[in-house]
């Protein structure tokens, strides 16, 4: 028998059914009934300091665990503060459900106090969103929301719940099934296309695997590795694909694209067959499209048909889940031998390794990342956006999926720290380090309070160059060193800032202090901030200028 409950009680029941263990959020007038019910529930609510961070925490939690992240905000400004976090999750296909309070149904459309049309605002950045107008629709809507967020190509879903819907009485029953006529993601690849792909791989002389975030979302790393080893194809990844293939593996080429390795970009230019898995040929990867992989046939495996042939035309499209499709491909492949191609790649790797000035005269960010890797190779690394992000991508060797968490599509400064908190909440036994820039960290550093008060010990490693470094780098290279609006200066004192919040603050100015500072931070069991005073005008290299072909690369002289 269905029991009679309020909308708010039903809401909590639904979250239990969806096995939600934690919600990140901030309350407000339109959420009072729900927060009142949450108070007695076993679901953990983590009170944050800005709603954008609630969304980023839910996002970091989701990327680290593979489960759907949940955030919640009140109507009006609370809801609009979520927008950046939702857009970020949308661009990177992160499963998330965002709940917002809304003014009572009778007042919607009247410019009521703290009313915002959040379903209208988030229309282009959600997979789908809902405004619940009748409390009886609440259980079904929430079930649909979690289902849609986590299946197919995952993404954020927003559910807007007016206050009177939270207080209305309904007969609660959680639906077992529902019908979504318009939503049936394809999981299994078409057998004929799989056959064609196998033949193309066997026939290729210089194949390359190009793996993206889809491999990680689909938990297909094992299968990807098997494919690469069977086909003897080197593997390059996108930024979000980091960790999908062990970078310690001899077939690994590291990252491709604007700040990718030279050998990955050369291999991509000379390949005769791209095996793209869960990657979308973003402009940061392809560079100038006409010059991208001019001799290559393309096999494109993706769960989202709309990604296929969007920018690069594909000869063998396979719509399906990466894991399922790769399994089928592996079945059909016979071990290959490709001495010449692999030899060429070895030569490139020897001739064009990643380089920086290792003399130790100044504190180099690349050295810091290498030291972080040495101290905690199994850490989850999150990043902010800018040079710090690219150094974190280039100089840490990722060997496991879900160990690199970064804002790829939207490039959101301020993402890394709240994402680290979310990741740590989801994986409390892991060491979690945010590799930050001084600019980015100042966008969300108020969450130090959240980390300290909720006892979430993450480390923020600030590569402090006193600049909005990545923008400064472009100004140096393409705008005659005219550093317009990129100098950040020397305020604040990050160690004192950390201490003010009750976190550990450590300042590092010399290379010799780096290792011990990292060790101290990660073993302190406290939220910690390390302020690395790095060489202020260090650049991220190699670099392919925007609009150039990916084999037209700027690097250090000599």
């Amino acid at each position, binding site marked *: 028998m269905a029991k009679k409950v309020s909308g708010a009680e039903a809401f909590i029941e639904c979250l239990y059914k969806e096995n939600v263990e934690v919600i990140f959020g901030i309350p407000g007038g339109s959420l009072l009934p729900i927060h009142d019910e949450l108070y007695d529930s076993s679901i953990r609510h983590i009170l944050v300091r800005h709603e954008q961070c609630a969304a980023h925490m839910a996002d970091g939690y989701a990327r680290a665990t593979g489960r759907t992240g949940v955030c919640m905000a009140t109507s009006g400004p609370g809801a609009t503060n979520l927008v950046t976090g939702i857009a970020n999750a949308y661009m990177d296909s992160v499963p998330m459900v965002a709940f917002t309070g809304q003014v009572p149904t009778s007042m919607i459309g009247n410019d009521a106090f703290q009313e915002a049309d959040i*379903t*209208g605002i988030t*229309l*282009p950045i959600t*997979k*789908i*969103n809902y*405004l619940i107008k009748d409390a009886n629709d609440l259980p079904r809507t929430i079930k649909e929301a979690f289902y*849609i967020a986590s299946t197919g190509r995952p993404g954020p879903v927003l559910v807007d719940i007016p206050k009177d819907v939270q207080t209305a009485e309904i007969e609660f029953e959680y639906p077992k099934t529902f019908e*979504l*006529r*318009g*939503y049936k993601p394809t999981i299994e690849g078409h057998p004929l296309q799989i056959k064609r792909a196998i033949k193309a791989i066997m026939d290729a002389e210089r194949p390359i695997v190009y793996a993206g975030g889809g491999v990680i979302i689909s938990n297909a790393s094992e299968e990807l590795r098997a494919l690469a080893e069977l086909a003897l194809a080197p593997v390059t990844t996108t930024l979000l694909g980091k960790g999908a293939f062990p970078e310690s593996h001899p077939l690994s080429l590291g990252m491709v694209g604007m700040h990718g390795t030279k050998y990955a970009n050369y291999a991509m230019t000379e390949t005769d067959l791209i095996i793209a898995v869960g990657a979308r040929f973003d402009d940061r990867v392809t560079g100038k499209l006409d010059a991208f992989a001019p001799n290559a046939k393309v096999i494109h495996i993706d769960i*989202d*048909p*709309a990604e*296929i*042939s*969007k920018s690069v035309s594909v000869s063998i499209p396979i719509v399906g889940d990466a894991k399922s499709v790769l399994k089928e491909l592996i079945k059909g492949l016979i071990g290959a031998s490709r001495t010449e191609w692999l030899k060429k790649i070895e030569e490139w790797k020897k001739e064009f390794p990643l380089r920086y000035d290792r003399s130790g005269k100044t504190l180099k960010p690349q050295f810091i990342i290498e030291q972080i890797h040495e101290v905690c190779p199994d850490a989850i690394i999150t990043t902010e956006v800018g040079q710090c992000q690219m150094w974190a991508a280039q100089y840490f060797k990722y060997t496991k999926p879900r160990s690199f968490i970064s804002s790829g599509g939207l490039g959101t400064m301020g993402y890394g720290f709240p994402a680290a908190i979310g990741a740590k909440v989801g994986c409390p036994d892991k060491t979690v380090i945010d590799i930050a820039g001084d600019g980015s960290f100042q966008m969300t550093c108020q969450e130090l309070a959240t980390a300290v008060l909720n006892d979430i010990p993450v480390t923020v490693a600030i590569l402090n160059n006193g600049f909005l470094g990545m923008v400064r780098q472009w100004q140096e290279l393409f705008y005659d060193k005219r550093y317009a609006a990129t100098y950040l200066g020397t305020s604040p004192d990050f160690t004192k800032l950390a201490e003010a919040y009750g976190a550990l603050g450590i300042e590092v100015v010399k290379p010799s202090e780096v290792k011990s500072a990292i060790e101290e931070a990660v073993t302190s069991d406290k939220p910690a901030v390390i302020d690395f005073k790095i060489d202020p005008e260090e650049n991220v290299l190699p670099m392919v200028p925007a609009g150039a072909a990916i084999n037209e690369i700027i690097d250090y002289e000599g």
Partner: protein
Amino acid sequence: MKHTLSVLVENKPGVLARVAGLFSRRGFNIDSLAVGVTENPEISRMTIVLEGDNRVLEQVTKQLNKLIDTIKVSDLTAEESVERELVMIKVVAEPKMRSEIMQIADIFRARIVDVSPKTMIIEATGDETKINAMESLLKQFGIKELARTGKVALTRGLKSVQEWK
């Protein structure tokens, strides 16, 4: 080239906004869009006419299909289909011009649906060429106002665009 898409969608609030938003956001140009409920009250049909090459059409179709509330997208351009538009034209019609206007209306099998001392409203249905031809002939009298529905279309014969059954 011009394409006519017939799109079945859930008859829910916000769906039209999603479709319209998709077109503007991705830079696709629509010539016309007509929406109405189907014989199943839970489902609406959108008839969308757009200009674009095959690549554009492929993207539009895929992006439309990606919307959760889209049930089915069909390109009617290559199909045997019947296409109609409705137009109402208010023309300046002094008494001495009326018979000439009525003759033109007659040729196009249009109907006079309103007459005032100085104007007439002519209603016509047909395909785009017919409507354009009639409009250009009526121009000489002075068109005061014009309203067009945008095209609706169905495939001929037994075949139908109703996957849901």
